[in-house]
């Protein structure tokens, strides 16, 4: 007790639980839930990770353990029932399944080490037939795939993706609903510059309202400046940026 131990890293809550069961030399079918829960919580408390995703998985298991613990502490109402249902059963099943795959993965590791000892050979098609390139018959490949079928597939993909998006968060999206594309914005600025020749950045922004608009416009200006289509000048800090169109530099 109280001896500082370097915390081992576990892949997940099941991994940690198996370790605790192993360490305490207890029977997996008869997990002393109070002891294991205590040690589990102790470990989670000291966990170094700041990754909320990982942390939350460990916490879910902590909640499960506490639930099992409280169920086991409750007085047994119906003896018949109690015998049939051990609150730990589901956890034991999961642990056993997980343990089994860990066991299998060790077997696979051995298999891989053996299999890695064989060498293969690169294709060596004789010169006479090397030039032959296998033709792909597109018509045969496409079979009965029509445009409308492809279209339906795309729609279902979009639908699936939409389903995945959290509806609350996605509503924020309505604030800026139009799509702003950098290259569109660049052509817009270029047109604007051709017409006005010299103008202030603020004037350019007059018709544009969203923050996204502003950012993309600014990026567009930087890009156009890089290609030499426009030149920009700012006399003093926070003063309006003066944009000048260079007709000579314009690329066709």
């Amino acid at each position, binding site marked *: 007790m109280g001896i500082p131990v370097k915390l081992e890293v576990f892949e997940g809550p099941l991994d940690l639980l198996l370790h605790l069961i192993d360490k305490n030399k207890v029977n997996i079918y008869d997990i002393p839930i109070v002891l294991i829960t205590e040690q589990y919580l102790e470990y989670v408390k000291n966990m170094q990770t700041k990754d909320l995703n990982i942390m939350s998985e460990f916490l879910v298991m902590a909640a499960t353990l506490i639930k099992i613990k409280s169920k086991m502490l409750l007085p047994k109402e119906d003896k018949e029932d109690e015998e049939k249902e051990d609150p730990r059963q589901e956890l034991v099943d999961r642990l056993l399944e997980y343990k089994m795959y860990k066991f299998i*993965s060790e077997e696979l590791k051995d298999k891989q080490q053996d299999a890695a000892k064989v060498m293969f050979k690169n294709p060596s098609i004789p010169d006479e037939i090397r030039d032959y390139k296998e033709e792909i018959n597109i018509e045969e490949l496409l079979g009965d795939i029509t445009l409308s079928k492809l279209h339906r597939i795309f729609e279902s993909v979009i639908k699936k993706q939409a389903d995945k998006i959290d509806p609350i968060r996605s509503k924020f999206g309505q604030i800026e609903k139009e799509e702003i594309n950098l290259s569109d914005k660049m052509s817009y600025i270029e047109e604007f510059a051709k017409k006005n020749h010299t103008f202030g950045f603020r004037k350019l922004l007059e018709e544009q309202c969203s923050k996204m608009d502003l950012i993309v416009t600014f990026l567009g200006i930087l890009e156009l400046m890089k290609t030499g289509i426009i030149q920009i000048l700012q006399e003093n800090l926070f003063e309006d940026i003066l944009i000048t169109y260079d007709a000579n530099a314009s690329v066709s």
Partner: protein
Amino acid sequence: MEIDKLEAMIEAILFTMGEAVDLNRIALAIGHDEETTKKVIHNMMDHYEEENRGIQIIELEGAFQLCTKTSMYEVLTKIAHIPKKHTLTDVLLETLSIIAYKQPITKIEIEKIRGVKSDHAVNKLIEYNLVCEVGRLDAPGKPIVFGTTEEFLRSFGVQSIEELPVINADKVEDFKLEAEKEVQLQLEI
């Protein structure tokens, strides 16, 4: 003799192609049905067992490929450049064994067994060409299902996924018992 000629052809084909060649392609090339072709190849595999042969034919889910025998590894390290294989971490191996045994399987199911998010592991296995998408499940949300590749079979020296060590209910029970015994053994010490 006819059989001899067929064997020669098949040897030449497998040698030239280098990669795994589907049984039906071999059959078409040598002009025999698949059944006969398979018999001839299996017969050849026996010949290759002989001690003076350094190469062997391996079977990968209905395809055949020539490679060296594992016993030749040592001498080959002395002369050939041995390509480095991806070393799989425990996390990847664990995820891979779940996919191998439960395929076709969705990511959610993998995560349920492992108790942790597994996007990274699955993507890595896809990158190493050990796992691939095999389609979508006909269930709400149409989740992607994953399975193992031919490269998986090659890398782990198995002919087909059926050949993986069986873990039917009985075996699982055995394993559970074994685990239990182990636990009790430790307790007694």
